[in-house]
């Protein structure tokens, strides 16, 4: 269980690092005006980083639900 938690946290940290790196690589401020800032590498890193974050948060929530279920059984 501890190993799974460490993997989840590792994925979360990796996602945060990628997203922050992508944010600084992408020039200009965030804008809702089309097309907004464009940078292939930066935006790809932001998207991948946020993907890792979403998956890691999902795994943490599912793991927490599992621990709660086993505790109440």
């Amino acid at each position, binding site marked *: 269980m501890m190993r799974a938690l460490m993997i989840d946290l590792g994925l979360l940290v990796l996602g945060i690092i990628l997203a922050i790196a992508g944010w600084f690589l992408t020039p200009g401020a965030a804008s*809702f005006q089309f097309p907004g800032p464009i940078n292939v590498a930066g935006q*790809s890193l932001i998207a991948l980083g946020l993907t890792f974050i979403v998956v890691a948060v999902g795994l943490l929530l599912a793991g927490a639900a599992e621990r709660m279920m086993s505790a109440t059984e």
Partner: protein
Amino acid sequence: MLATVTGLWFPGVKLPQFDFNTLNGRLALGDLSFPASSTTFIVGGIIHMTDGIIWALIFGLIISPVLGVVIKPLRPMTPTVNLMKGIIWGGALWIISSALWMPLLIGAFLGPTLTGPFGLPCGVGPFLTCFGPYGVQALFTNLFWHMIWGVNLGLLFNPMRAAGRVRW
């Protein structure tokens, strides 16, 4: 619905906006005007959310049980395993969206307008490697969008095992 709304917020984190409502509305109504009308957005939104419900039903009734039978580690019906199945289904739909829906439908319909009057580098490239002014970041943003949908589905869909024998 969660993923659909999140796609509209993507420019807030410097990503291309993923407005599937408008894209679906354009396809359904043949609307090539810029910006698209609110009718296009609403009709497309209804289509897209119906799509999402149908794909979720297919997941619940077919994909999730079949994955449990075909892949042994995915047999236990625990929250983590259900989440993994949701992520797999989200990934499969990302591939379908990027390889087929976006280039073959949106690209064929909207591509000539994007590359013609707007002078953008491309319409919708193969496997979403470009989308209007964007390059391969559109593909990864599409992955992010589908992971939001898959994680949401996997966390919400937690079926209980039947009291007797499981019959799939």
